[in-house]
């Protein structure tokens, strides 16, 4: 982190108590978006109940502007523009191979690890282009949770401490890191379950606990944006429920972007939904609008289960 050539952009960690600091506060999407709202959607999309209330505030943190990503010959994302806001959960849905994961990975420059990937367009984090931010610093501000639970093969404590320590460092006094490790585990709702076993190997936890540990790990860096790539697809329904609640609780502290195959899940937890198809952003609107009265025909077909 000391190797930064340009001065780091100001990091703004916004807390719920002071939403007034926002540069842009948009109104909550649609009235009647309240808790427990049941929806009479087309194609019998009625099963889910919204598990979240309307956002209390919403601040634009990231801006995807005309982003295209291509791998060798294939164009995975085609001129996509959308905002990412703190105070809200943004869900990206779409059939496999539609570019939603590529878009997600572009947000913290993980696509750069794929040698054939080519990006054009801009992505802004607090009005600064992310290509101007040193990657390791950016990735601490925009952290990511993956589809497979992937704790590191070390103890529960060290999994979190790894994030807090300097790049290559192995040990710093455990005592000094303890409060931050505990609070990260607590934010991921895992602390009570593992507090007596912090020295146990993380890979011995259950799948759901492992995934929450990964979320705790992503939160330990105190990010401003949290990216989740199908975080529940390898988990049982009960763990999924726990993690969904967790995601909703996080939306005031970090901007949350979640990629999901599970339409019910998107409907349950998202404030805004982006539907992608073959690299195009077909529709971006509030969850109630997208599931209730989609503007595009393809969206309607997809959310009613016609394809994908």
């Amino acid at each position, binding site marked *: 982190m000391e190797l930064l050539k340009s001065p780091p952009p100001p990091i703004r960690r916004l807390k719920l108590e002071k939403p007034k600091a926002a540069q842009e506060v948009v109104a909550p999407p649609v009235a009647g978006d309240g808790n427990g709202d049941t929806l009479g959607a087309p194609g019998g999309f009625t099963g889910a109940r919204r598990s979240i209330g309307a956002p209390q505030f919403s601040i634009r943190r990231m801006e995807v502007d005309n982003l295209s990503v291509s791998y060798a010959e294939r164009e995975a994302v085609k001129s996509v523009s959308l905002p990412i806001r703190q105070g809200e959960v943004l869900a990206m849905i779409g059939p496999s191979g539609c570019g939603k994961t590529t878009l997600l990975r572009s947000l913290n420059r993980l696509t750069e690890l794929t040698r054939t990937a080519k990006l054009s367009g801009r992505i802004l984090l607090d009005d600064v282009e992310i290509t101007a931010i040193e990657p390791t610093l950016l990735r601490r501000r925009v952290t990511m949770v993956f589809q497979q639970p992937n704790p590191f093969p070390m103890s529960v404590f060290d999994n979190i401490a790894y994030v807090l320590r300097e790049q290559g460092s192995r040990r710093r006094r455990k005592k000094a890191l303890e409060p931050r490790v505990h609070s990260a585990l607590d934010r991921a709702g895992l602390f009570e379950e593992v507090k007596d076993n912090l020295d146990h*190997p993380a890979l011995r936890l259950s799948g759901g606990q492992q995934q929450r540990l990964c979320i705790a790990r992503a939160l330990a860096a105190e990010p401003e944006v949290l990216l989740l790539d199908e975080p529940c697809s390898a988990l049982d329904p009960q763990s999924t429920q726990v993690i969904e609640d967790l995601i909703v609780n996080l939306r005031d502290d970090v901007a949350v972007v979640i990629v999901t195959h599970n339409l019910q899940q998107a409907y349950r937890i998202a404030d805004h939904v982006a539907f992608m198809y073959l690299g195009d952003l077909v529709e971006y609107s509030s969850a109630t609008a997208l599931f209730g009265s989609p503007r595009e025909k393809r969206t309607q077909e997809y959310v009613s289960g016609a394809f994908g």
Partner: protein
Amino acid sequence: MESSVATPPTAPPPNQPPPRPGKDAVEGSATWRLSDRLGLALCWGLGLLFCAIAAAIVVYLLVQGIKYLRPEMLFTPASAGFSQSQSGGFSDAFFGTLIVATMGISIALPAGVGIAVWLVEYGRPAALARITESTIEAIAGIPSIVLALFGTVIFSSTALGFLSRSSEGVVFGRSFFAASTMLSLVALPLVVASTREGLNAIPQHVREASYAVGKTKIATTRRILLPTARPQVATGAMLGLGRIIGDTAIIVVLLGATQNFAPVEGAAFPFDYLRGAGTTLTNFVYEASPTGNLNQPEKAYAAAFVLLLMVLALNAAVDVVHRRARKVGTWSS
């Protein structure tokens, strides 16, 4: 189908599925077709045969070794004598083996792990990676006697005179330095291959998880990848050590194969010994065997038994590393 169960060797007619096992039934080979059953029998037979061969070697050496090995042999140097009671032990060979093993692997292990990390994690430019790969494979295929011959050319050069005995501009070119360096080449491909295997087994998303919390590639390699690949690195080191301990050609050509240490006068310890000629257990076994110059087969058995114990100890050590790694667990796929 009932009859085919009762009279095993007849193959069930083709295109007919094997009988459905009942609720508590365990699939048995009785329902397999004949060729599959022959294959199974062959596997069993070969497996048992190799077990028997390995057991025979170990048991035979164990019996002979216990019969002839005296602890003082490990601490008495060999000496000239007409009978086996006068010719001393093989302490110089024993410590010689320890020295070449330590020196050889301390070159091969860091170099091999470094090469493997570069190949798997970086590997750019691709052409250089390909060349490196085939070079390593080539080294793996070179007989050690050829490496030894090549070593004499290198280590007899005047520039490397400080690594062996030299007098009046003539470089002897045979020393522990020379032998260990070439022996490290014998171990290197094994370390590289095993470490690569370990690194390749780590899912890509684990690396990305580390990058995604702002860690650099180097930090990820040091703190996540290498610790995860530790069992495979240990296996590679063990295989490499086995090859180093077991090699004879390089010892004969590059270590001088004297029966005693021949330290260089005037050099500081330990360089006087390391620059001088010496021997190892394999060479001692060869010389003490009926075809060798010493012709004292009882001591050959004793020395071979010590060699065997060393290899078994290495195996046990690697097993401990693997066991510890299993305790940590791995990712579900």
